[in-house]
């Protein structure tokens, strides 16, 4: 019998300063990763940089925005030196408004049933398949899940979506909004089911130190790779997200 001790899954190298070191090489290809955090902690920037680094390598990337219109999103991201509008013009970064997608699919109801959910999954996977998307960000999955009434349907939606995207070789970041209270009690998603379905969980949050908020990032879970589980201090700079280990004597606030 052949030993599998040396087997290493291929990685999607995020290109984000420090994150690939934390993940011992990157996110295993085809994973669905929850990027959870409270407001203002850098989730959207992390997601956008993940796409930009892919586009720099010639990968086709897609961003589904449910929290702000795509025009506003692109306006905000232009402040960063790492972003180049040519990536959008060349079709390497494709930004989709969820509202436009809903109306295109005729999903005008306030809440989605099973049929609506499958229509949405098919639309997303069709886009991924047609463009050949290898990196996908949905910002935020929380906003999307508010339209789904039961935990069971949310579970089905995320499980089926993740499975289909993985089959297509697409590595996905699902941005998840959590309150700062939840971030402190080991709860990584709004509905509680997203974290169980995901292959990985990257938590972003704030540590309060003497009245000041310091951003942190922590990889709580990542299937298919060993990884650091320490807290890292985050700085959002014009050249991208930067990470350094948080001081041990100052990481608990």
């Amino acid at each position: 019998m052949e030993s599998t001790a040396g087997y290493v899954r291929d990685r999607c190298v995020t290109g984000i300063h420090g994150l690939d070191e934390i993940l011992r090489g990157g996110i295993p290809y085809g994973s669905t990763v929850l990027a959870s955090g409270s407001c203002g902690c850098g989730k959207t920037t992390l997601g956008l940089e993940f796409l930009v680094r892919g586009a720099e390598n010639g990968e086709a990337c897609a961003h589904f925005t449910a929290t702000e219109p795509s025009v506003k999103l692109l306006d905000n991201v232009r402040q960063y030196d790492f972003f180049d509008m040519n990536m959008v013009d060349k079709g390497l970064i494709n930004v989709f408004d969820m509202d436009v997608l809903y109306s295109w699919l005729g999903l005008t109801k306030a809440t989605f049933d099973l049929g609506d959910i499958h229509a949405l999954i098919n639309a997303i996977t069709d886009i991924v398949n047609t463009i050949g998307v290898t990196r996908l960000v949905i910002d935020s999955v929380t906003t999307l899940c508010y339209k789904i009434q039961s935990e069971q349907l949310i579970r089905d939606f995320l499980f089926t979506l993740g499975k289909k995207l993985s089959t297509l070789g697409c590595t996905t970041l699902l941005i998840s909004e959590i309150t700062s209270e939840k971030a402190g009690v080991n709860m990584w998603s709004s509905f509680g089911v997203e974290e169980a379905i995901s292959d990985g969980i990257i938590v972003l949050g704030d540590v309060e130190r003497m009245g000041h908020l310091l951003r942190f990032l922590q990889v709580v879970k990542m299937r298919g790779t060993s990884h650091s589980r320490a807290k890292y201090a985050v700085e959002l700079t014009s050249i991208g997200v930067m990470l350094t280990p948080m001081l041990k004597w100052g990481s608990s606030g």
Partner: protein
Amino acid sequence: MIELDQKIAEQLSEVGLNSSIQVRCGTSNSFTVTASVIHPLINVFDMGGVYISASRGANEIIEGLESVGIATGNIQFLDMVSSGILGGTNTEHTNISYIDSPIMLESALLRTMYQMRRSVNERNFVILDSVNALAIYNEERMLAEYLHTFVNTFRQREVLSVIINVPDQTPPGVLANLDLYCTELIDRGQIVIN
């Protein structure tokens, strides 16, 4: 005009880029000693770098350095003081960026690395001014841990690190660790009266 300490320039000519220099000064000579360190780095060794100011606002430091003939255009200042003063961040200098508080030690480290990544200089330094100022706000163990990280981070990247310190205002544990981590010592902590 103050007279710069030429012996510091001689001592600096013998250190490598991966050195970590502890510069001890007293309360009354800190600016002279600091300027005596920066002058050769800029004017003789043609270096650029980052100056982390926790003791005074960067505006004041820039004016002081320029008054003794040190051009500051090739230095990026990280000011940890002025955000705590209303109106303190109003400046015309474009080479100053502000950190909210001296307790945000990791931010200072990341912003320094950010400036290093943007730097076009072949050889860079980072000056931390000063350990005793950071000790006002930060707990002893955390400050010792930070200095340990700081020294090792820049040694690994071949960036000359200079750590300014007034020893009698620094916790003994931090001081002992600095002695251990730093590779060189410039000691002007005692003022000799002739």
